[in-house]
Every structure is written in structure tokens, then in C-alpha cells.
């Protein structure tokens, strides 16, 4: 297609544009993405696989990875359910302030994550607007895993919604109407008609949210307390090790996260196809 656009005829034989454009793609990606990623792998394993393995299996490293997974899981669970609900409401009903709500949901995308962090502190911290009323009851949200989940929810708020809503918008209304005419309840229609066509969008929304949560740093470092083995997530662990000058330990976990996102986006790529192909 690119050949047609650029006006070069290729009625038969070899299309020069194809290899050229692929090469350009890779050459541009080289210094921007591929080499930086490669350097993580080179540095992480520079002292041999043995010390890479030791860095990886340090109890605090394993804990950090687990904590990242758990907090990201709950943030994802919430944001997917909420994103689904919000998308349903906002594409089904038209009401005053609807666009304002849509804009508000999308806001966290552009807000610096550090701002998200201290906004949460100002609200839920022991001296925060609401946090000070919880303090006497011994309820601490900040500097716990709950704080990390709240931060993840804030930062990834628009992602699942953003993927699900367009599918809602373009959904074939006639199917739902047919379902209703056949006597299905609102819930039955949603469960048997609406939801199945959303599976692909829900999965990609979930994976995007999860991937983004696992990598979250700016807000987490402010709200978590950064205690190794207690409230230190994988990105915080990487940062701490880097600051301590243990670049190799930092790289070991960075490699895990890099492979992990590779896995997530591979699943995203393939799974979406077969979920939607149905």
C-alpha cells in the first residue's frame, strides 16, 4: 500500500519499498528502543549467569516482584470492572455533564505520576484531608500495600475504559434490541450478548492496565514508604539498587520486567485475535 501511496509502480517483480521501509523502521528503533533494552541484558549478565541468578533470587528482589504483581492485580481488577461499567454508562446514556465525566476519567494520563502520589498523600496521609479522620481509628492507608494499589488505580484509571468504550460505541445495537425483543432481561442481554463481544477489549484493557501498573514508579515511591521487604515494589527495588551502585542487581530485576512486558504484549497480540475471531 505504501508503494501505491508513494506513486511507485510495482506491477510485477520485486517491491523495493518493502525492505527499505522495514529497514528504516528497525534503524530508527535501534538507538531509541532496541539498544537501551539490549544494554539492560548485557549489563545484567555481565558478571556471569551465577551472579545474575543470585541477584534475582535475593529475598527482597523476589518480594518486590511479588508485591508488584499483587498490587497490580488488584488495581487491574478494579479498573477493568470500573472501566466496563463507566464505558457502559457513558456510551448508553446521554446526559448533562457526560463529556465532562469522560474527560475527567482520561485526566490521569496527562498528570505527572509524582503529582498522583502526593495528591494521594494529601488526601489519605496521616495528616491528609480524609486520612486524619481515619488516623484515630488506627487505619493507615498510606505506606502500605493499599497505598500502592490506590496509586496504581489512579495512574491506570483511563486505560481499560479507553479500550472498552470505543467498542461499546460501535457495537451493533440491533443485537441487543433483538435480545430484548425476545424477552431477555437487561442482565441477560448484557451477559449473553453485550459481554461476549467485549471480550477482546476487556482482555487488552486488563493487560494494558496490568503492564502499566507493574511498571509504575513515580507515584509509588511517594506513597509506599519504600521499605525493602515490605512496601518496596519491583521498580522501587530497581531504583534503590541503582542508587546504591548495585547496577547489576537493578538490572536483574529490570530484565524480569522487560521479559514480563514482552510476554504481556505477546499475549495481547495473539489472544485478542482469537477472542475476536469467534
Amino acid at each position, binding site marked *: 500500500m505504501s508503494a501505491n501511496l508513494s506513486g511507485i509502480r510495482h506491477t510485477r517483480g520485486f517491491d523495493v519499498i518493502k525492505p527499505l521501509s522495514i529497514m528504516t523502521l528497525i534503524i530508527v528503533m535501534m538507538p531509541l528502543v532496541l539498544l537501551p533494552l539490549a544494554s539492560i541484558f548485557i549489563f545484567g549478565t555481565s558478571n556471569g549467569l551465577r551472579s545474575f541468578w543470585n541477584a534475582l533470587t535475593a529475598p527482597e528482589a523476589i518480594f518486590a516482584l511479588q508485591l508488584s*504483581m*499483587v498490587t497490580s492485580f488488584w488495581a487491574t481488577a478494579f479498573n477493568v470492572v470500573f472501566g466496563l461499567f463507566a464505558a457502559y454508562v457513558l456510551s448508553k446514556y446521554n446526559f448533562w455533564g457526560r463529556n465532562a465525566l469522560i474527560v475527567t476519567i482520561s485526566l490521569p494520563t496527562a498528570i505527572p505520576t509524582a503529582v498522583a502520589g502526593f495528591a494521594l498523600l494529601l488526601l489519605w496521609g496521616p495528616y491528609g484531608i480524609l486520612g486524619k479522620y481515619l488516623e484515630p481509628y488506627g487505619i493507615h492507608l498510606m505506606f502500605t*500495600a493499599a497505598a500502592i494499589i490506590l496509586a496504581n488505580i489512579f495512574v491506570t484509571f483511563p486505560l481499560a475504559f479507553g479500550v472498552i468504550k470505543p467498542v461499546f460505541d460501535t457495537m451493533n445495537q440491533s443485537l441487543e434490541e433483538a435480545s430484548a425483543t425476545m424477552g431477555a432481561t437487561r442482565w441477560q442481554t448484557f451477559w449473553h450478548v453485550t459481554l461476549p463481544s467485549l471480550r477482546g477489549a476487556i482482555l487488552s484493557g486488563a493487560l494494558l492496565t496490568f503492564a502499566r501498573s507493574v511498571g509504575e514508579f513515580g507515584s509509588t515511591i511517594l506513597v509506599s514508604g519504600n521499605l525493602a521487604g515490605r512496601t518496596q515494589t519491583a521498580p522501587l527495588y530497581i531504583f534503590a539498587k541503582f*542508587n546504591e*551502585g548495585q547496577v547489576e542487581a537493578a538490572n536483574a530485576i529490570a530484565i524480569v520486567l522487560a521479559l514480563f512486558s514482552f510476554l504481556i504484549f505477546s499475549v495481547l497480540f495473539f489472544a485478542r485475535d482469537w477472542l475476536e475471531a469467534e
Partner: protein
Amino acid sequence: MTNKIKFGLTFVLAISLFMMSCLPSAPGGRGGGKAARTITVYGFSVMKESLEKEIYPAFAAKWKAEHGEDVSFQSSFAGSETVTNQILQGAPADIGIFSIERDVDRLIVAGHVPNDWYVTPQKGIVNKTPFVILVRKGNPKGITDFADLGKEGVKVIHPDPVSSGGAQWSILSIYGSELKKSEAETGKRDEARALNTLKTIWRNVIATPGSAREARTQFELGQGDALITYELDALLMKDANAAVDVVIPKSTIFSEHPVAIVDRNVTAEERPVVEAFRNFLWSEEAQKAFVKNHFRSATNEIFNTTNAQFGKIEMPFTVEYFGGWSKAYPEIIEKIFRDQVQNK
């Protein structure tokens, strides 16, 4: 794709999701069973090694022997000002070890630490270390004293005074050393000369990392020609065989590091063990461990003769030279550094 494969994949996904949601119960259980007491320590960046390698295990063994209880530690390290801000925001520190006394003052004002926190031996100071200059192996830029850092073409890494206590020590060190030298030469503190040296050095600063430790990492990764830092951190780098040389300025400051119990976070039940840990920091055992890890002892100068790597400083001084932190911070860090050097 067949239904069977699909079912299998869904099943695997469901299991892994279930496992992920369950994990929160697992963490936390480090350092032995439920009976273990845990002390939460927030420390400024370069405290990490000596605490984790020597002090924690030594205290845990002592407490176990005396009380039969297990004690475990959890800690977080960052720039001194950052640590203080975290505690001010409610971070669960039982005890804080800071680079500068000003940070304890900030906690007192906020009601986290009582006014009489320093009613301990050594006025709350656990250890000290002089400020030195770290250069590349062989000293290619020919740095011999602070003033040389202001020479044309020298690139300096200097931590950020906003977040790092070490950075503030460094500024006091540069400024005070010029006063001290001028005083020795002419009998008068030459403030114009001191300001000028600070200005020329700051022109050469190419990066201001958040803590002394971050600054060291950047230097180790090859940035800059020189780094002003704690002697302790410079010696730790030498121990790690980094290709660096230590330059001892003719005159430099001894940074003194206070410890304070964060009263607000310590329950009556935890108090004995937290206090015992703080007091342990002044014990002979702990002070010797600090010296071994290149801090200088705050309690006994004889311990300090046991570390052969310590540099000799011709004209040392402390923050008392400026009348203490309550004067040094507003008059030098704010009025001179911030207003006349940084914002110029």
C-alpha cells in the same frame, strides 16, 4: 483453535490470577516467626552498609542473648531531607538517622520528636566523617583543594541540597574552608573569597542527584571529573576497587549525624527495644563497627586511630564554626548558597 485448548488456556489464566490475588498474605514474614519484634529504620543514604552489615546483626544477637527475643529490622534509605519528608508525611519510621541536625529540628517542630531528643550521650550524634573530593584515578584534572573544582573545564557532580543532607555539608565545607584558610592567613574571615569559590564551583556542577549515594552512582557510571562526598563513601568506593583517588582538602568540615526516635510511631510496648537500639549505637561495639566501615567514631577518638585509611585533615572544623545548624542553615545554605549562588 479448538475448544479444548481454549479451555486449557482459560484454566491456566484463572489459576494464575487466583495465585496473584492471594499473595498479599505471604509477604512480611522476614527474619523469623511472628514473635519477632521489628524495628523500622529510616536512614540517610550512606548509612546503609554499616547498619545492614554490622549494626543490625550485632544488636539482634545482643537482644536475643539478653531477652530471648528475635529482633528484625526493615529500613529505607534516601537523601536526609527526603527521609525527613517521608516521616513528616507519616512513614512508619521508629527511628531515623539523619545527615543533618536540621532534619531533626523539622521533626521536632512537627511534633514527631520531643524537644529533649538530644539528652543522650554526644547530643544525639552517632558518628561523623569529613568531606573530601573524589577524582578519577591519577587525578587527571590536577585537583588539590576545593578551589580547583572551579577551574575551567572541570565537571563536578554535586548532590542536590534540596533533598540531600550531604549536599548541604558539602556547601558548608567549601564555604567554611575558605573562611578558615583566610582566617589563618590574615586573621579575618574573608567572606567574599568564600562566596566566590562557591560560585565558581557551582558553575562547574553538571548534575545534582537526589542523595550522596545517587551522586556516587552517577560518578561511578562515568559522569563528571570530581565529586564532593563523605570520606566514608569515598573509602567504600576504594574498597570496591573503583578507579578513583581521594583528595583531602586542606580544610574541611566534619559532618555529624544525629539519631532520633520518632516518638509518634513508637508504642509504649516497642519503646524499650527501640531505645535499646538507639543506645546501642553509642556502645563500643557499634562505634568500632562504624570505624571499620569508615565512619569516624563520635564517642572515642582512640577508635579512629584504628582505621589506617582515614585521611589527615590540616584544618578541620564542624558546624559549630558557623554557630550550629540553627545559624548555618538560614545564613549559609539559604542566604548565601540559595540566594547568591544557585539563583544567580
